[in-house]
């Protein structure tokens, strides 16, 4: 009887030992979830070799710090055909608006909020055509036009600084270069039209018949 009990105990112990050693704690299943993995492995993040520099080299970008996040955005002034504006706007707007002179900017139609909210001078400064102006009358550099947009579109502005709104330029790596508002949106008509999709799969139609 005692021998039986002894053998029983021994097998029991052996079983426990086997159970404890057989549970693989390999690298594959080290973490409970991918979120845990990201959290744990990014604690000792020291930066990587891959860089965006080769891709954004030669682009006209400049650094901005918004919402305590620093990144690069493209310049604007060098992409506007007839900047500086003062090359035509030699005198204040009121003096230029006569019936004799042919109307300029005839092609611009404002389709941005309604007439109660916005017109040309909500953003443009009739006294200093080279700069933009905030609602309270402060001057805003044309390169930093996002400051103008963020006055109303706070939510989009915040998402943009973090990278949830808008697009990265070329590379996912650092240093971060992101497009600014006017690279996608026409400031005078910021919405998008509907359009046809880029492709239609004729094979799928056949397969699903």
């Amino acid at each position, binding site marked *: 009887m005692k021998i039986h009990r002894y053998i029983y105990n021994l097998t029991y112990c052996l079983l426990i030992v086997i159970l404890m050693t057989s549970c693989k704690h390999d690298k594959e299943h080290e973490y409970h979830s991918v979120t845990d993995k990201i959290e744990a492995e*990014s604690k000792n993040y020291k930066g990587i070799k891959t860089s965006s520099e080769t891709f954004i080299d030669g682009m006209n970008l400049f650094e901005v710090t918004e919402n305590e996040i620093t990144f690069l955005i493209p310049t604007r002034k060098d992409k506007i055909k007839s900047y500086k504006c003062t090359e035509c706007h030699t005198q204040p707007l009121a003096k230029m608006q006569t019936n004799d002179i042919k109307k300029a900017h005839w092609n611009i139609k404002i389709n941005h909020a309604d007439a109660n909210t916005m017109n040309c001078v909500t953003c443009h400064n009739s006294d200093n055509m080279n700069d933009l102006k905030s609602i309270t009358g402060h001057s805003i550099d044309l390169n930093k036009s996002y400051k103008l947009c963020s006055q109303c579109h706070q939510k989009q502005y915040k998402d943009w600084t973090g990278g949830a709104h808008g697009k990265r330029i070329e590379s996912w790596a650092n240093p971060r270069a992101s497009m600014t508002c006017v690279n996608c949106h026409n400031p005078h008509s910021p919405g998008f039209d509907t359009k046809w999709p880029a492709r239609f799969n004729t094979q799928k139609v056949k397969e699903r018949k």
Partner: protein
Amino acid sequence: MSDNKKKWFTLNLNSKHKQTSSSCGCGKTSGGCNSHQPKKEELSNDAFFEAAVDASIGDERHKDGFDQVFDVKMDRRSAFKKLTASLLIGAGAAASCTSVTSSSESKEKAQIDWEEQFKGNYKLMDDKEKSATVDRLVRSYQLRTGKNINMSSKNAEEDVLFGYAFNISKCQGYMDCVSACVEENNQDRNSEMQYIRIHEMKDGKGFNFNEADDNYYHEVPAEGHFYMGTQCFHCDNPPCVEVCPVQATWREEDGLVVVDYDWCVGCRYCMAACPYDGRRFNWSKPEVPEEEINKNQHYLGNRMRKKGVMEKCTFCVQRSRAGKNPACVEACPTGARIFGNLLDPNSTIRWVLENKKVFRLKEDLGTEPKFWYFMD
């Protein structure tokens, strides 16, 4: 033995039926065998030679080449010996033939084909072998088409884990991403293969994939609909990798789930195992017009595939490992697609995960996809 009456072909290596003294190597039970050893003593030299040949390959004389090679009873060791020997002879013959009749180029071609035929699994290669393989493929392409391609074997970088976020409120269903993906990844134009699918879903019905349309053709965005893209989610716990019987697919250190097209046997287990329909199969030989081939390639990415192998989105490994955004991210005109390094605490993808309400598809399966959806 009953094998005799089989109408189908049986690979009879290392047969379980041990030969008894009464039956002979040809597998026939009565009288059919050309000769038997006991006669030997009474024979002259010539007759002995004849009998010996008969004894060894007697029945093979009446069989065609295929049967001769395979329908022979032998143990595994001698089977492999014979197989290797005949292959070597074949190769030798090929090499000697080409050396006489054709140029050194075709000799090189044969050499490349030979080495390609017997290369190992990419997953198990060291860096030297990887670059040798890639060089061979580049040279092979050059010999065949006279054109140069650029193929990379760049490994995963440490401290990189790729992740993706998709903004459902931004996607307008333009499908520019699909086009860019097809062009970037040299996908078959005949079967119109596409890794990405954009599902047009009705507002207020939730994510109802059964009622969604992924092949619409009308002006978009359509009234009362939203759009949701799916592709390979590069799961951290990928079921497709688990089921592969030959380990032709695996998860790289930077999180990309990749396929070695030359190791894949085309069983499509992975296709069945993927809960997201992320994998595609080449039912026919993939064809891309020569002028449309993207010549910037990676071994695990967009290099040319063959018939009967699996392929899938690799987050454009040829681009992403170089530091570029995948083609779909670059092509998207709405900025709905965000890509980056999950281990970099200051990356944009991390900002999205930490500041937006994100979710993943079929999270309850435990596949841990590294592809998050979010809304504005």
